[in-house]
C-alpha cells in the first residue's frame, strides 16, 4: 500500500507540473471557446483528483490487507532498480554516442555492452557476434531500406 500512496503522490506532482506547463501555452485571437489550454487544464485537474482518490483508497484498504496479500503484491516484479537503470544507461549511452562515432560502430558497441551486461563473458565469439550483428543491421536499415541512421561527425 505504501507503493500506492507514493504513486498517488507522484501522480499529483505530475498533475501539478503539467498544470504549470499549461501556463506556457500561447493564446491566439483565432482560437475557439475551449482554447489550446482548455483540455490540458481539465486533464491536470482530473489527474490530481484521481491521485487523491488513489491515496484515499490506499489508506482505507491498508487496514484490511493481510500480510500474505502484501507479499503477493510484489509478484514476479521484485526487481532490482539499479540493475534495470544500468540497462537504460547503456541504451542512453548509445543515443549519445551514435551521433558522434556513427551508427555501425555504435550499434556494435551496444550489442556487446548489453550482452556483457546481461551475463555473457567478453570473448572473441561475442566480438564477432557484435560486429556481425552491427553489419547486419547496417545492411538492412541503411543499405537495403535506405533509411537514415546516425552519422559520425568524423567521417
Amino acid at each position, binding site marked *: 500500500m505504501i507503493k500506492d500512496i507514493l504513486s498517488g503522490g507522484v501522480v499529483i506532482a505530475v498533475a501539478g507540473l503539467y498544470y504549470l506547463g499549461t501556463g506556457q501555452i500561447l493564446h491566439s485571437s483565432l482560437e475557439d471557446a475551449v482554447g489550446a489550454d482548455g483540455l490540458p487544464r481539465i486533464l491536470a485537474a482530473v489527474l490530481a483528483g484521481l491521485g487523491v482518490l488513489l491515496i484515499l483508497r490506499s489508506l482505507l484498504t491498508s487496514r484490511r490487507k493481510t500480510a500474505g496479500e502484501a507479499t503477493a503484491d510484489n509478484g514476479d516484479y521484485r526487481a532490482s532498480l539499479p540493475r534495470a537503470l544500468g540497462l537504460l544507461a547503456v541504451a542512453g549511452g548509445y*543515443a549519445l554516442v551514435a551521433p558522434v562515432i556513427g551508427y555501425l560502430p555504435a550499434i556494435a558497441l551496444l550489442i556487446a555492452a548489453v550482452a556483457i551486461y*546481461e551475463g555473457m563473458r567478453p570473448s572473441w565469439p561475442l566480438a564477432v557476434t557484435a560486429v556481425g550483428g552491427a553489419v547486419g543491421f547496417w545492411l538492412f536499415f541503411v543499405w537495403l531500406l535506405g533509411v537514415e541512421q546516425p552519422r559520425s561527425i568524423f567521417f
Partner: protein
Amino acid sequence: MEQFAQALTMLVSTPIVPVAILGLIWGIIGGALPGISASITMALILPLTYTMEPVNAIVLLGSVYIGAEYGGSIPAILIRTPGTNSAAATVIDGYEMKRQGRAGEALGISLWSGVIGSLFGLALLVLLTAPLANVALAFTPMSYFALGILGLSIIASLSGGSLLKGMIAATAGVMIATVGSDPISGLGRFTFGLPELIAGIKPILIMVGLFAVSELMRQSGSKGLDSTIPEVVRIKLPNFKMMRKIGKAQGIGCVVGTFEGLMPGGGGSIAAFLSYNEAKRWSRYRHEFGRGSPEGIAAPEASNNTVASTSLIPLLSFGIPGSNSAAVLLGGLLIHGLQPGPRLFEKNVDVVLGLYMGSFIATMAQLLVGVLILPLCIWLVNRPRPYLAAFILALVLSGTYTINGSTVDLAIVLFTGFVGYLMVLTKFPFLPAILGVVMGPIVESNYRRSLLLSGGDHGIFFEDAIAVGLLIASAVFLVISVVREVREARAAEHEAKTA
C-alpha cells in the same frame, strides 16, 4: 461477370501474383520489426513504386498492409512487443501463452485468425464498397467525439483489476497526446522549444517504450534474463476443436473490424482493443482472458486484419483514408495520378480489380508464407538471452530512429520505458495509457470542432443520433464495468475472510 473475367486475365497478363507475395513478405518482416508500423513499412517501399505500373504499385502496397498486420503479432507474442500499433491487444494473451510454453499455438491462432479476418474484410471490400461507405460518410465531428469516448470507456476492462489506476494511466495517455500543435489553432503545447515535438509524440514511440524497453528492464532487473532456453516450438495451426472455440471471438473481431475500418480515425488498434473487450464480455471462458486465452488472440487479430481491408472502402469510394496505412496507400494512388472516388471505378477499374485480386492472393499466401517465416521467429526466441536482449534493444533503437531520424525519439522511447518499468512495479496497466494516446486527439479535435459548429453549445452532441447512440453505449460499458469490479472486489474480500 465481365469484371471477373477481366480479373482472371490480369492474373496471367500482369505480374500481380509475385508482386503480391513479395509485398506480403515485406509486410510481415516490416510488421514484425518493433518500432516499424504497418504505415512505415508501406512508406519505406513507397518510393519504389514510382517506376512501377499503377496496378502493380497498388497491389504491392495493399499486400504490404496485409502482411504487416499479421507480422505485428509475431513480436507481440514472442517478445511482448507489438510490431504494429494494432497488435498491442495481442500482447495480453499472446505473451501469456508464450510464457506458458504455447508460443507455437498462439502464433498459429494469430495466423489463422488473421487469414479469417482478411478474407472477411476482403469479401466486404469487394461486395459492399459503395453501400457501406455511406455509414462513414454519415459521421459528423460529434459522432467522432462520441466514438472516441466509446473507445476510452473500455478502459475499465483493460485495467487489470484496478479501474482507478486504469483511469490514471488513460488520463496520462491523453496528456501525452496533447504534446505538439493544438489541433484547432495550431499553437504549440508542451514542446519545450524542441521542433521535433511540434508534430506531437507518435503512439508507436509510447508503445515501444512501454512494452519493449520496460520489459527488457524488468527482465534485467529481476533475476537476470531467464536462463532456461525455451524448447523448440512447432507452429500449431488450430485444430477443429480450437477453431470452434475461437470462432465466436473471430466473428466478433470481424464485425468490430468492419465498423472500425469504415470509420476514419478508428483504425486497427482501436478495433483490436474493442474486439478484445467484446470477446471477453461474450466468452464462456472469460476467466482465461489475460491468462493466455486463445480467444484473446483470435479477436484482435481477426479484427485488425479485417480493418486492413475495410479501411480501404471509404478510401476507394470517397478518398477518405480510414487509417495511417490507408493514407499511405492513398499516396500511392496519387503518385500515379489516380483520384479515388466513383471515377476510379469508371476509368481505372483495372487498378481496383488488381487490388482485389492482389489482396486475395496475399491473404491466401499468408498461410504458407506465415508458416515459412514463423520458424525464423521461433529460432530468434531460442537464442541465448543476453544476445536476444542485445539484439532486441539494437533493433528497437534502430527502428525507432527510422521513424523521424531523430535522437529525440530515442530519448522519448527510453524515458517511456523507464516510466513503464515504474508502472510495472506499482501495478499500473499499460493499455489504458496507450488507448489514451491513440484516442486523445480524436476526442479533443472533434469535441472542439463540434463546439465550433454549435457556437459553444454542448446540446449539439444530443442532436446527432449516431453520437447519442455511441455515448449511451459508452455509459453502459462504464457502468457494467464498475459494477463488475465492485462485485469482484467484494468476492475477493469475502474469499480472503473465509480463507
